[in-house]
């Protein structure tokens, strides 16, 4: 063995090996080019996570819906397809309960419908929906005034993302192009700014027009707290699997830093943060608007696994002060017990059923006391 240390030669060898690893991964785990292929292998997906947002959008977007990735169509608040679930039959005259929120709330609605056939349950949901999306979905629901009960779901993980405006910035690993307004509290008043497009057609129009796309990116830079050009803009770095992984690590670290100003695992939410102030304002405005429409407003608080009941604790004073009904998941599924959760962070079916029962109980008790169980005249 030649014992003379040659560090520079060693660095060259290591560099060459890393290039080989990079090329090897790209050849062995290529991400399917066809956007309709929705079942890539776990490793294909894993090495794709770090691609830039624009790179991911490019992979899933085509000129028509038939050619594009199915996920592209989800979450658009102006789209009637947003309604992911309803057990109401045409002509039925049952009291209507509408739930707005993320996948957890969709599952809750499904179970509510299974348990109680006397209610007509509608559900408006988007993958990874943050509270601002849910509120915007409520405001854009043209039939909201016909709902006897409206449920707004908020989730612990979604609160730090309140100042985002799109599924492209609120979740880096898998992006969704749907958009929602940016809400802000100005002198105690909840205000909002709408994104340049709020429909799938609008998105396509912008995506395939570089000038329009630039104006959208400029809008994101101005209004979206989580917009980051390193994560968003497509560059040649997308071609390297190792650099994609580095970008993913950067995305996680930058998300953690942004989240730190709003939420701390030990201390809970920062009550002075913009996000918490906006959330409280959204809830108060949602309840006021619902009451104006003679609907019963309820807040469904989804406490994520290992995140304690911090969300409940930060909202409880505002909910009590405004006499807004709520169901907090921590009462039925303690967040510190992982047995209550599936690996994908949803509640286990038995607990989801319990939550649905509890929600129906709240609805029954308060609807009968408030007005009558009879449905509104449409």
């Amino acid at each position, binding site marked *: *063995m030649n*014992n*003379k*240390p*040659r*560090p520079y*030669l*060693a*660095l060259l*060898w*290591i560099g060459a*090996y*890393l290039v080989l*690893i990079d090329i090897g991964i790209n050849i062995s785990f290529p991400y399917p080019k066809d956007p309709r292929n929705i079942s890539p292998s776990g490793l294909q997906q*894993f090495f794709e996570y770090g691609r830039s947002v624009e790179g991911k959008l490019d992979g899933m977007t085509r000129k028509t819906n038939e050619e594009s990735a199915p996920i592209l169509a989800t979450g658009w608040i102006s789209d009637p397809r947003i309604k992911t679930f309803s057990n109401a039959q045409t002509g039925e005259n049952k009291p209507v309960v509408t739930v707005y929120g993320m996948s957890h709330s969709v599952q809750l609605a499904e179970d509510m419908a299974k348990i109680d056939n006397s209610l007509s349950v509608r559900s408006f949901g988007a993958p990874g929906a943050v509270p601002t999306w849910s509120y915007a979905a409520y405001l854009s629901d043209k039939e909201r005034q016909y709902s006897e009960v409206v449920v707004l779901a908020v989730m612990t993980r979604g609160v730090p993302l309140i100042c985002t405006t799109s599924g492209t910035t609120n979740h880096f690993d898998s992006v969704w192009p749907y958009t929602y307004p940016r809400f802000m509290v100005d002198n105690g008043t909840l205000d909002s700014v709408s994104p340049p497009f709020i429909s799938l057609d609008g998105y396509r129009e912008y995506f395939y027009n570089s000038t329009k796309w630039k104006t959208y990116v400029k809008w994101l830079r101005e209004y979206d707290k989580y917009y980051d050009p390193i994560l968003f803009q497509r560059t040649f770095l997308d071609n390297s699997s*190792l650099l994609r*992984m*580095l970008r*993913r*690590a950067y995305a*996680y*670290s930058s998300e*953690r830093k942004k989240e730190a100003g709003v939420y701390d695992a030990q201390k809970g939410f920062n009550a002075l943060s913009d996000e918490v102030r906006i959330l409280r304002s959204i809830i108060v405005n949602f309840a006021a608007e619902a009451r104006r429409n003679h609907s019963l407003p309820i807040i469904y608080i989804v406490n994520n696994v290992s995140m304690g009941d911090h969300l409940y604790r930060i909202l409880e004073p505002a909910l009590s002060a405004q006499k807004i009904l709520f169901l907090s998941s921590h009462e039925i599924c*303690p967040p*510190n*017990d*992982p*047995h209550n959760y599936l690996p994908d962070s949803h509640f286990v079916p038995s607990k989801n059923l319990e939550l649905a029962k509890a929600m129906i109980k709240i609805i029954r008790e308060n609807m009968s006391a408030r007005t009558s169980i009879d449905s509104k005249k449409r």
Partner: protein
Amino acid sequence: MPFNSISFLIFFIVVYAIYRILPHKAQNIFLLIASYVFYGWWDIRFLFLIIVSTSLDFACGLMINEGSIPKKQRYAISSWIVLSAFFLLVVQWSKLSATAINLRPSWAQLFSWRTGGLIFFAVVLVTLVLNLLYRRFAHFEIPSRRKFFLILSIAGNLTILGFFKYFNFFLENLEAIMRGLGLNPSNLHLNILLPVGISFYTFMTMSYTIDVYRGKLTPTKKLHEYALFVAFFPKLLAGPIERAANFLPQISAKRTVTADHLMRGLQQITYGLFKKIVIADGVAKSVSSVFGAAYQISWADAVVGTLLFTLQIYCDFSGYSDIATGTASLMGFDLMRNFNFPYFARNPSEFWGRWHISLSSWFRDYVFFPLGGPYRSTFRWIRNILLTFFVTGLWHGAAWNYVLWGLYHGVLLCLHRIKESLRGTRKRSKHPLIKSATILGFFILTSLGWILFRSRSLDQAMGIFRLLIKDFGNLRFNAEMPTRAALLGFPVFLIMEFLGNRSRGKRVDEIMPMPAWTAAFSAMIFLIILGLANVPTGFIYFVF
């Protein structure tokens, strides 16, 4: 600024680039400033503690050996300590940050006279008194003077350490005793922050004065060199606990960065980052899901959680030590070896010669031997061992589970000694199977000890021990799985450890051809990139 952060990477690149172009004298001063910046990054106020400890031991070292400190030196120490008290405790640096400055703080807000000012005036007063009493000290009889300054140094350091680390522990126990006596004490607990690395640098400074007292070391007359010995940033937060006899000459002499230094440094940094980012951080969530579980864990959870913590603590701490040693090596320094593949130990005596070597040798030299060491009767030897390990446990943390962990190892060592004396002159079997079984057996014993170390309370530790017996064989596994990077990294880690142990710590480039070892390091770099997405956890030993 932990080693596994971008901020440290930028810091080190800047420091290294400047360091390499400076002449030797300027290098030392520059490294001292860099080290203070590195430490002040956490909390600038605690930098004052390091300066107090440094000044105290520097002065005590000179007084023990020479009996005098030249006037110029005295003024230098005095003004250094007074100025640092003002700038680190009175000036409110947080008000000068970019965001705070936008709020236009008033002059009054830039200074903290209530707490910082109080300490500042106390420091001025004590410095004045010590300067006035200097002539008296210098006229002490030699043996009394030497003893006086040794005691002053040890008492000073232990007071700092005791207050910041053990004061609340003492109060909690006092409260418990008072409650036991039927009294109802109000909450005596003080809100004290533990300065990072305090146990490490106070032990370094104490060993300096003790060695000077013992005549093993001539004290340095250059304050900045001594200050650099204490604060050198790679080892400041979690060791190795360097001895002045090894490190001070390296500061004084002109350093050359050789190809050997570069090779060793880069290898150690890479392997250290691999152990920390890929393995330790990769299993951290799994370990927490067992030891922090709010539900009833099973036997399988307890076993896997314990084994993963055994890996985590080793990879976390030895990873830190490797990065520290590697970083120092790139600058031409040779730090002492802190770990020597401890999980290949066959008995407790071997284990403590391989685990946290700088601490175990410190306790051997400054606690065990002064107590009488191994040279007296078996009873005295056992007493000395148990006392030494009691203190070793307490050093790790102000809680009874650490003390028990120390005593557990003390008892293992005593049992080993009894077993060895019963064996007499019979030789150990060299059969590979027996050797492997002995290593595995002691690994299990070490892992059981880590339950005491990791548990949040004694009750929890006892609960896990009970579970290991009563729930034996329950394979229902609920804990979180390690990350993908960690799972891929385990085989690489095992191969590296096995090769390292077999080659008795030789560098891989000395035992393998370049294409082979560079392939291993490339795999490690790939896994580090993969592991960077893990939630980074702080180095476990930073809190000790």
